[in-house]
């Protein structure tokens, strides 16, 4: 009897013990998607987030009223790498027209446009000219960074000794001894940093607390006059310098004058041969931050915190309007803000942050575009994370003028990125890539929860570069942020009910871009769709993305499969987000 009772007690004790050891739920992503789909699938605003070989096939349900999904791959690789992938779909419905605005939204105040001297004329503006200029700027920056990086690798002495050596040799612009009317000699050689100097004589036109504005004596006639230069110096002091140094930090002062030299020279214009597609608007050359003498000296250095600006050329403007007084003046302060960030970034890396490398070009350029944006906020009285609508920009002349002077170029580049989204890469610094990388960097800053000052100061004052730098400052995997940002391109201000990571808190691009002259009342996003075919073949660059729309009829189901064109597994660097938009 005792044995029986003991046996019974064993059973009583064992049953819950054996049953209570729950199954651990370590499901593969493909299994999760499959189970999720049989549980009803995605609701509007929800997403599957998959990666590489985990992607396989996945069902998408049409629900009671039909549904639409976007499939957004993001290729997290170097921009010179390419990936072909095939998206096969079974049961995909006929595509619907791509809408620019969310339902109920309107284009805003008809007739008013951004980025045009005649604000009522759509399609005319500086956008195209600026767009073209960036292509040449890209080539110049690439070459200059490569050469300056070589100087950095050689090693530099500390800032104090560089300043002493400069003070011992020079007197014209160093140590605050310059006066208006002084003539100075500056090397404008842009092809090579240290050899074959090409000297120009410049005349000091204006001196402010923070700037020395110098004009090349060879500049074309009927360009800027003294009042223009004084205005540039004043605006630099009152707006650009405080905004940028307050965010990124002070530049160095190797020449001991406490000022930045802004050299308006036709040598910049000369970098653009007549008839060129692109126009060089200005440049900063890090070689000027290195000493001329010493074992690793750079003889061609101007040994100054300075950058170079284009000048008006009324005669040339007859064929190339970008050289007109109007356009060069309109563009100048935005370019100054852009180049000043490059100067601050490079100078602090060399002498303050003790970095071993310059910032990667794509991120350096994105930061310079952020610099333009920060100056816009200060000039307009607006700020980030306000989801700025085009009506906000057109609300008064102060804001509209600030957009046209500092900000519209960013909109133009971002719009061109959207037009060419499949061929673009945010890790590149070509035209489209820079539009995307600026918008991505703004997104990361907004997502970080830090203030602009804290976030961008950390980013600039760094010894790391590129994605590593971005990850360090944001505390997140930058490729995962890029994956989410790629989705936000489509969903922000367009699809309701999405998580915050699929929103862009600062700008309502859906309302703004159609009102930028060159986009002519359209939202310039190019998407991909099945169009009756059962496969979409995609070619992505590293740092590239694309939006594929997948409609599914009511009470139907589509099954999608993402593979290489040959049917193989995708690499783990390929992220794929599937989000239900309707």
């Amino acid at each position, binding site marked *: 009897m*005792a044995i*029986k*009772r*003991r*046996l*019974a*007690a*064993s*059973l*009583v*004790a*064992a*049953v*819950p*013990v*054996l*049953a*209570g*050891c*729950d*199954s*651990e*739920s*370590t*499901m*593969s*992503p*493909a*299994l*999760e*998607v*499959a*189970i*999720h*789909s*049989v*549980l*009803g699938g*995605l*609701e509007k605003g*929800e*997403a*599957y*987030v*998959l990666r590489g070989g*985990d992607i*396989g*096939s996945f*069902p998408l349900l049409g629900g009671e009223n039909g549904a639409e999904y976007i499939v957004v791959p993001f290729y997290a690789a170097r921009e010179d790498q390419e990936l072909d992938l095939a998206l096969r779909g079974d049961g995909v419905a006929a595509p619907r027209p791509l809408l620019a605005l969310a339902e109920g939204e309107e284009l805003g105040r008809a007739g008013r446009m951004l980025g045009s001297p005649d604000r009522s004329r759509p399609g005319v503006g500086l956008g195209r000219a600026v767009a073209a200029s960036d292509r040449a700027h890209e080539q110049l920056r690439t070459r200059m960074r490569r050469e300056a990086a070589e100087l950095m690798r050689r090693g530099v002495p500390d800032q104090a000794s560089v300043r002493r050596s400069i003070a011992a040799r020079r007197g014209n612009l160093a140590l605050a001894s310059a006066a208006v009317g002084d003539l100075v000699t500056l090397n404008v050689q842009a092809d090579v940093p240290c050899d074959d100097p090409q000297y120009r004589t410049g005349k000091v036109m204006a001196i402010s607390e923070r700037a020395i504005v110098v004009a090349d004596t060879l500049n074309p006639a009927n360009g800027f006059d003294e009042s223009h230069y004084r205005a540039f110096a004043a605006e630099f002091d009152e707006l650009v310098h405080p905004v940028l140094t307050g965010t990124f930090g002070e530049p160095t002062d190797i020449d001991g004058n406490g000022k930045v030299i802004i050299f308006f020279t036709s040598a910049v214009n000369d970098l653009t041969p007549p008839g060129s597609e692109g126009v060089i608007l200005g440049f900063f050359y890090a070689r000027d931050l290195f000493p001329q003498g010493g074992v690793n000296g750079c003889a061609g250095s101007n040994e100054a915190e300075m950058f170079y600006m284009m000048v008006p050329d009324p005669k040339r403007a007859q064929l190339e309007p970008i050289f007109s007084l109007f356009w060069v003046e309109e563009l100048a302060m935005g370019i100054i803000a852009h180049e000043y960030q490059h100067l601050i970034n490079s100078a602090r890396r060399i002498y303050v942050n003790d970095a071993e490398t310059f910032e990667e070009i794509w991120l350096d350029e994105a930061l310079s575009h952020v610099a333009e944006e920060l100056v816009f906020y200060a000039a307009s009285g607006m700020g980030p994370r306000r989801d700025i609508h085009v009506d906000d920009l057109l609300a008064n002349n102060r804001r509209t003028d600030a957009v046209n002077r500092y900000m519209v170029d960013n909109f133009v580049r971002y719009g061109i990125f959207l037009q060419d989204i499949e061929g673009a890469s945010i890790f590149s610094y070509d035209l489209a890539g820079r539009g995307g990388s600026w918008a991505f960097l703004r997104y990361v800053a907004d997502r970080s929860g830090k203030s602009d000052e804290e976030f961008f100061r950390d980013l600039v004052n760094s010894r790391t570069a590129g994605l590593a730098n971005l990850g360090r400052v944001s505390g997140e995997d930058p490729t995962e942020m890029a994956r989410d940002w790629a989705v936000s391109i489509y969903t922000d201000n367009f699809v309701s009910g999405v998580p915050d990571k699929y929103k862009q808190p600062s700008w309502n691009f859906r309302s703004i871009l159609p009102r930028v002259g060159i986009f002519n009342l359209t939202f310039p996003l190019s998407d991909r769709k099945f169009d009756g075919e059962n496969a979409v073949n995609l070619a992505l660059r590293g740092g590239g993305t694309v939006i594929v729309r997948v409609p599914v009829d009511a*009470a139907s*189901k589509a*099954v999608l499969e993402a593979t290489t064109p040959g049917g193989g597994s995708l690499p783990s660097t390929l992220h794929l987000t599937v989000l239900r938009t309707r």
Partner: protein
Amino acid sequence: MRKRIVVPIACCALVLIAPARLAAQLPGALSVEARLGGAFATGDFAAPGKALEAGNGYAASVNGRLQVLPGMQVYVGYERAQMTCDACSATPVLDNTIVDDGIGVGAVMAVPMGPPGLSPWVRAGLVRRQLKFSGDDGSGASKPGIGFDLGAGITLPFTGPFKVTPGIRYVRYTTEFDFQNVPDRSLDVSHFGVDVGLAYQF
């Protein structure tokens, strides 16, 4: 990770140590029961187009019972049901069956009526169960959910200490899926069953 190691060790220790002490302290008659029968999904769990479109299958359980009062037993047991899943069969990677299992605790009350030799009973209890899927890419399960279990039946004498206990039952609980890559989901699971038990009383 620490919990994953500690809990099984504690479980095993309990199985080895508990019976001697438990047996010495048991107040009333002990019995064990095994049940087997059909399971039929109900509600949203079964509705076409809603979720799993679960269908029919089998249910099995084993439990131990302890008489605590005249006409009243408490039970604890392991229960498992396996049903078809029409929605699963439409996916490329899932098997077309699902498993619902876990533990149940509750009480069985004898109903003082009926012809001599037949003992009607009703039961009510709590369940802690989870839903399990399997397929080409492995298996996965929901988080255990808490619900209830209602049943009724009769006890028929069989031979010696054995008795036959046919009955019907209804199980319902809500379970949640904590996914890593897709949005979380919850699901109401409910099914009706007709089964037969074989009980042995010590």
